[in-house]
């Protein structure tokens, strides 16, 4: 069994063990097993980074065994510079989420922890699957735990949110399944993603497939105008659910563009790049303005996520190394930052049970340590140099300017709106006099919350100050990807 299989199945097996521990009286035991499980799951991903060979775009840690012989489906795993960081990111965020749910979740603890651990394994599977059916299985299977997480531990309007989440994403992925089977037929009976990447395809087929993929991935990213599920879901999901959703699940869509749309359909990608760029710019500019007027903290961060993911897709579809690398960096940075922002909101919510900005004010007076962490993450969200948020946005803007000055200029306006909505929210929630008794009675973060925020703070600063480990890994794969996009597959 290779390292990738271990990374996928360790959390899933731990999740299954937790499900077997049914009684509520065992809650404390369940929490510890979950924590140990998530730590081990993270540890087994480390060799993937350590043993990663730089300078080659080839797939590494490849595992391939026949799985469903009748359809020539293989259990085919592998990572390259594009995907390897997301495997680590997923396992890392899962630890944070387990810590975050430690005291907050009192009902059905074992199912909660099991859902997150299994979700973690499934998402790692998405990032490492190199077979269409395997990818689809992991991609879709993530819906089951997330649906239950939102529906069982969510807010008042959780049922609406859970259905919206499931059905919205299910439609997109079903169309993707049809596209996969079509590629299977065209390639003479292969579900291998790498084979598809070298498969010649006529223009019409490419366009249709491009939009089938678009349906799956754009909903997941989410891109404007199919982003409407995200604010609803974020508002209702429990803190851990929001964190995983923003930090990793959104990346599944963006990753899909890189792994499927661009290399398999280079001509359609180039032909429709204008559309992708336009939608990304709308997300960056328009959604940035929408975020400004939100009353609800979670909604605000959700809209900010849509705007930040706009940077990612913008970076991808300008087709230059800076843009794609920037998009990838932005994905990782956003994973840390948005996850941290949702956890910060969770910290406040646990104390006051409100997500309204107006319910707060002067939190910095009663929770100084917490406010310091929050300031760091908020600054990272508006792209302050030295934090992770800066690296991604800056590189994408450079890439965009290289492609077209005006696109770069429009994208850069996000730095203004991003700073506006983030800092304004910060001012209203944290600064000023203590607004009411609830805020006055708030206790500062305890050791557990300190630990979880500190881990993320280290990650945010590390990536902001020294992004080289990230870019080094990506370079070869990004260059290879761009080479594939540049070559026409029309025959």
């Amino acid at each position, binding site marked *: 069994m290779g390292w990738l299989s271990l990374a996928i199945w360790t959390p899933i097996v731990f999740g299954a063990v937790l*499900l077997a521990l*049914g009684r509520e009286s065992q809650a404390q035991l369940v929490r510890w097993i979950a924590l140990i499980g998530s730590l081990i799951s993270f540890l087994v991903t480390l060799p993937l980074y350590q043993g990663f060979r730089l300078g080659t775009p080839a797939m590494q840690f490849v595992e391939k065994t*026949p*799985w*469903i*012989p*009748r*359809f020539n489906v293989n259990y085919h795993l592998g990572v390259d510079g594009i995907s390897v960081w997301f495997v680590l990111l997923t396992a890392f965020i899962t630890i944070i989420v387990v810590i975050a749910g430690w005291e907050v979740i009192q009902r*059905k603890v074992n*199912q909660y922890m099991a859902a997150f651990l299994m979700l973690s394994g499934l998402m790692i599977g998405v990032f490492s699957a190199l077979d269409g*059916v395997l990818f*689809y*299985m*992991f991609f*879709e*299977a993530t*819906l*089951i735990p997330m*649906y*239950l997480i939102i*529906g*069982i531990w969510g807010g008042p309007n*959780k*049922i609406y949110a*859970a*259905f919206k989440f*499931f*059905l919205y994403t*299910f*439609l997109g992925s*079903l*169309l993707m*399944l*049809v596209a996969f*089977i*079509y590629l*299977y*037929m065209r390639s003479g009976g292969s579900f291998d993603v790498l084979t598809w990447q070298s498969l010649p395809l006529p223009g019409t087929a490419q366009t249709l497939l491009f939009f089938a993929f678009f349906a799956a991935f754009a909903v997941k990213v989410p891109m404007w105008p199919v982003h409407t599920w995200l604010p609803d879901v974020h508002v209702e999901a429990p803190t851990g659910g929001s964190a995983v959703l923003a930090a990793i699940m959104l990346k599944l869509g963006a990753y899909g563009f890189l792994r499927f749309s661009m290399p398999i359909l280079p001509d359609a990608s180039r032909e429709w790049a204008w559309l992708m760029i336009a939608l990304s710019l709308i997300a960056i500019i328009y959604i940035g303005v929408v975020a400004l007027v939100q009353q609800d903290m979670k909604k605000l961060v959700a809209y900010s996520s849509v705007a930040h993911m706009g940077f990612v897709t913008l970076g991808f579809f300008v087709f230059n190394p800076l843009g794609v690398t920037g998009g990838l960096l932005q994905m990782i940075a956003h994973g840390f930052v948005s996850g941290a922002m949702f956890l910060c909101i969770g910290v406040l919510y646990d104390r006051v049970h409100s997500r309204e900005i107006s319910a707060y004010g002067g939190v910095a007076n009663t929770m100084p340590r917490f406010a310091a962490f929050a300031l760091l993450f908020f600054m990272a969200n508006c792209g302050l140099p030295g934090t992770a948020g800066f690296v991604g946005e800056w590189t994408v803007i450079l890439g965009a300017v290289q492609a077209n000055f005006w696109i770069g200029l429009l994208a850069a306006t996000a730095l203004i709106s991003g700073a506006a909505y983030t800092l304004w929210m910060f001012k209203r929630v944290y600064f000023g006099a203590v607004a009411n008794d609830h805020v006055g009675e708030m206790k500062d973060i305890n050791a557990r919350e300190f630990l979880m925020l500190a881990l993320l703070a280290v990650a945010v600063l590390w990536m902001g100050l020294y992004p080289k480990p990230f870019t080094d890994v990506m370079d070869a794969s990004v260059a290879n990807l761009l080479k594939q996009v540049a070559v026409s597959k029309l025959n």
Partner: protein
Amino acid sequence: MIDRFSWIAIYPEIVLLVMACVIALVDLLDKSQRRMPAYILSVLTLLGVAALTGMYASGGQTIYGFNGLVVSDPMANWLKCFAALAVLVGFVYGRTYVLERGMLRGAEWYVLNLLSLLGGFVLISANNFLLIYMGLECLTLASYALVALRRDHTVSVEAAMKYFVLGAMASGFLLYGMSMLYGATGTLDIGGVFKAVASGQIKHQVLVFGVVFVVAGLAFKFGAVPFHMWVPDVYQGAPTAVTLMIGSAPELAAFAMAIRLLVEGLLPLAFDWQQMLALLAIGSLLIGNLAAIAQTNLKRMLAYSTISHMGFVLLALMAGVIGGNALAAANAYSSAMFYVIVYVLTTLVSFGIILLLSREGFESEEIADFAGLNQRSPLYAGIMAMCLFSLAGVPPLVGFQAKLSVLQALISTGQAFYIGLAVYAVIMSLIGAFYYLRVIKVMYFDDPVSVAPIRAPLDMRAVLTVNGALLLILGLVPGALMALCAKAIVQMLVT
């Protein structure tokens, strides 16, 4: 000439028939309430029959018996094996249910089910129009009686009446179609019909008339739109244990009947019947999925869901012959077979859970009765959730693999029309996902209305857990079952 092989071919049927009679007789001596001897004998019989047919099937031989009247090939034997197991599982699930509802005054429950299975066996193996008809009647007559087994229950009796009237009409259709084909081809033998039609000497018009009626009869049995009216009423009205029985094993027999009639007999007319199946499938997917949304009764919802799943089976059946070329046939028909088997496996779980939750004087068949099941029993809520996700076609459960094979069969044809149908089918699956999710929502997100403990005998709990686990296991490693279907269908096509 009746040779030794003829008898070997029908051993399973002989065993079933003899044992059904023995059980009826033994039961006369049994004065107890629970009728355990009949139960144990039935279970042993079914185990034996399943083992026998499984052995035949893995032997891989095709035997024609009684001058081509019956055929015993791997496809038939696997279907028989699975049908026997399905009835066995039904006996285990339904044991306490039928006892508590006074359906065990005699051993009719066991004997009628065995006879119905016998009819299914005959149908599966039949290679002759008359034998098909005989098997079908044996199957359905026993089913009518089963639906009416709760004599004092008005709804059940009404359902039985409806089932009988509509079923008789369907049989009439089928018989009429067969008689037309007989008139045109001069033979009742399916192989003979195939040869006569393939020769091209026969007037096409007459044949098409015959095909229309045959397809209508089949559509009745499948419950395809617009011949689906009986399905919701019978599913809802019949006692749940009986619903389980008519929703599982007979579907396997109906599939075999469709293969024997349409593929083995009328393949040269594929162009005609494929168009009819396309219409039936489109209608079934639409009506089945849309009507299921409006249901509050779980059994009725599952009935509409059955209609939509049969739409998928029909889609697979029509993807076999493209432009007169039967190259894709094995692929398409084995996908259909896989889909039917998976469907039966999933149906057993869903009705098994309904039976588990019902107790004396309380039918747990409203969706609302499932509220908060996760808090009452995480295990059974988990099994039911897997079953529903499987029906919705969400990976990694086996229902996804079934949908994948059918979609693959459709798209592999490379024809725009078939690819369009595949897209249509997945959009309909999305609608389907909604009503399955709603049941999961009730089980997981709502608070329980009843805190009555879930009590069930050990055998039922064990079988139900294994049955539920199979949905996941077969979803993860479907290769063996798929290969089994493919091999059986290929052999059916070449002989």
